[in-house]
């Protein structure tokens, strides 16, 4: 379901100033549009013209509230479903232009880890078969070779193959299932791993184990990560670059240290202020956003955050802000950025 060109051109993104095309990024996404049909007449643009790039070895975090389109964006990179507009270039290959067997050949390079680990594993399969499945589909070696590979994978994610091989997913806790998902995702030696809220269903103590494991895997296998999360504290711990999304658009792009120390977008500032700090001596920050995000079916004109923003002016309603550089590698799409 492709929209006519004139409709896509209406969805001007927030600019491309933040792209680093001369540094040979692993992934370049330009003007990505994902739309779902709501009824016969209306569409919702879950991702409304987003451009970004990911350098090799980087961990790009995508943060935002539920419904801002961050999961849709992650899936659109994998062409699940195919985006309505824009291009995704992986390792120099425009995968939005591929189909059939050509697209299938690219798929092992990008793997995904899902939020709900238990339901993303087939409950009827034994762990060894779950991890063997991608290897079998791609005919990676004989049955005996694959069996050794499965054991190695299980070892590398910190599970004892002898104990877990023959069990099924329901016999494991959430954290262990997430380890199995990670083993399955890295089985085909991907270059890019898309992690969609990998730890939000886990306890804090288990969360730290999985985050450290992902970090280890990244270093050992030279992976590039896209880390989708709503938890800003988790994002700060793992990412090297953060992209803040609101209602299908980019608000701000920065390194985590810059973003948390000097947020330039009013939305980022409010998001950070809302995170509870585990220290009773730290006073509660009173920068609050009121209400909830408006419906993406009928987004506000101009800046999409203006309906909840204290600093909004007439210009915000009339003109969509474009990304501008406010510091080295720090970009914000706002007419009236926060000054520190």
């Amino acid at each position, binding site marked *: 379901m492709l929209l006519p060109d004139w409709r896509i051109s209406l969805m001007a993104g927030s600019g491309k100033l933040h792209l680093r095309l001369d540094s040979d990024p692993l992934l370049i996404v330009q003007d990505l549009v994902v739309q779902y049909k709501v009824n016969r007449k209306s569409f919702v643009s879950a991702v409304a013209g987003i451009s970004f790039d990911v350098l090799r070895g980087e961990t790009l975090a995508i943060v935002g*509230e*539920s419904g801002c389109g961050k999961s849709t964006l992650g899936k659109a990179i994998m062409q699940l479903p195919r985006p309505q507009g824009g291009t995704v270039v992986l390792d120099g290959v425009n995968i939005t232009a591929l189909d059939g067997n050509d697209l299938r050949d690219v798929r092992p390079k990008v793997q995904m880890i899902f939020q709900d680990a238990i339901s993303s594993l087939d409950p009827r399969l034994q762990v060894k078969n779950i991890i063997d499945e991608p290897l079998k589909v791609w005919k990676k070696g004989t049955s005996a070779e694959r069996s050794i590979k499965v054991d190695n994978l299980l070892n590398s994610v910190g599970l004892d193959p002898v104990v877990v091989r023959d069990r099924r997913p329901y016999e494991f*806790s959430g*954290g262990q299932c997430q380890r199995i998902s990670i083993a399955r995702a890295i089985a085909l030696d991907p270059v890019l791993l898309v992690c969609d809220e990998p730890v939000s269903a886990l*306890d*804090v*103590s288990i*969360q*730290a*184990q999985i*985050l*450290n494991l992902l*970090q280890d895997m990244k270093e050992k296998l030279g992976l590039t990560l896209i880390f989708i999360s*709503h*938890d*800003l*504290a*988790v994002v*700060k*711990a*793992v*990412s*090297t670059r953060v992209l803040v999304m609101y209602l299908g658009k980019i608000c701000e792009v920065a*390194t*985590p*240290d810059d973003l*948390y120390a000097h947020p330039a977008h009013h939305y980022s500032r*409010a*998001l*950070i*202020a*809302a*995170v*509870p*700090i*585990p*220290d*009773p*001596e*730290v006073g*509660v920050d009173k920068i*609050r*956003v*009121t*209400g*909830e995000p408006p419906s993406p079916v009928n987004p506000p004109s101009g800046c999409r955050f203006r309906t909840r923003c204290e600093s909004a002016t007439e210009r915000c309603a009339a003109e969509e802000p474009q990304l501008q550089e406010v510091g080295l590698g720090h970009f914000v799409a706002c007419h009236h950025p926060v000054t520190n």
Partner: protein
Amino acid sequence: MNQLLKLSDFSVSFTTPRGDLHAVRGVDLSVAKGESIGIVGESGSGKTVLSRATMGLMPSTATCTGSVEFNGVALSDLSRAEVRNYWGTGMAMIFQDPLTSLNPVRRIGSQLMEGLIVRLGMSKDQARARSVELLERVRIPDPYAAMKKYPGELSGGMRQRIVIAIAIACTPELLFADEPTTALDVTVQAQVLELLAELRQEFNMTMILVTHDLGVVAGQTDRVVVMYAGEIVEAAATKDLFANMKMPYTEALMKSIPRLDQASGQRLRVITGRLPDPTTPEPGCSFAPRCEYATDKCRAEKPPLVTMQNGHQYRCFFPIGGSL
């Protein structure tokens, strides 16, 4: 100090095919009027079972022993029907999942009015007027329209506000909030927590906040109780707890949280292993298998709950910073 709730040697166990599962083991807890208490622990630590059992919301497979005293009345001696009289006006609860705790096929208005009519004996018109006031109070835009809606038509944040409105409808003395913000976005979480704090002051409510998030507890409570494997392992005034943790478990829990005020790219500290199997209790300290300071004594002998002079309690032979 005016005592509202007192639990003495309170235990809850469930009969399962694998044997008795001890979810809560020998909890002593007293809550003063107007206090705000946080109960913290990992999933499976027994914090939800403790709060539900206190209210008498347990299935028939559960066995509760020990005593629950509410306002001087021993609830544990009353029948189910008699305990019921305390619901709504005496104790109320905000549940974790705002979608499943509302009836999907009844309008918001009728769910809100039910308690007012049954508990406070209001007429339908009185109840309707009061419900609109309550919805306004929890900042639902256009309360008249909201009364006619079904839960499915509202967002998660709105639904949680409705659940809060229902819980405070009969101005309970004691409000349990079981993970009230876990299912919500961080901006909406901040709004809901602020609302709860306001309501608590306005109605002079005592609150027991059950959560796994030490960050939420830090800003909202006067006292914190840390639970592990069904037992209280540490309890102290909130400021005291965060400043002088005694129990290695609390410290480990604290250190495993990623924090905004830490530099990025640092490795997180982990607690290895998992909670012990609740059907087979450990002979010694229940945290010993995961504790980095554990000795043979910890594994063999159960540490008692020690109370310090300032009321700080901990269950450890080798508390951090030495004993007393």
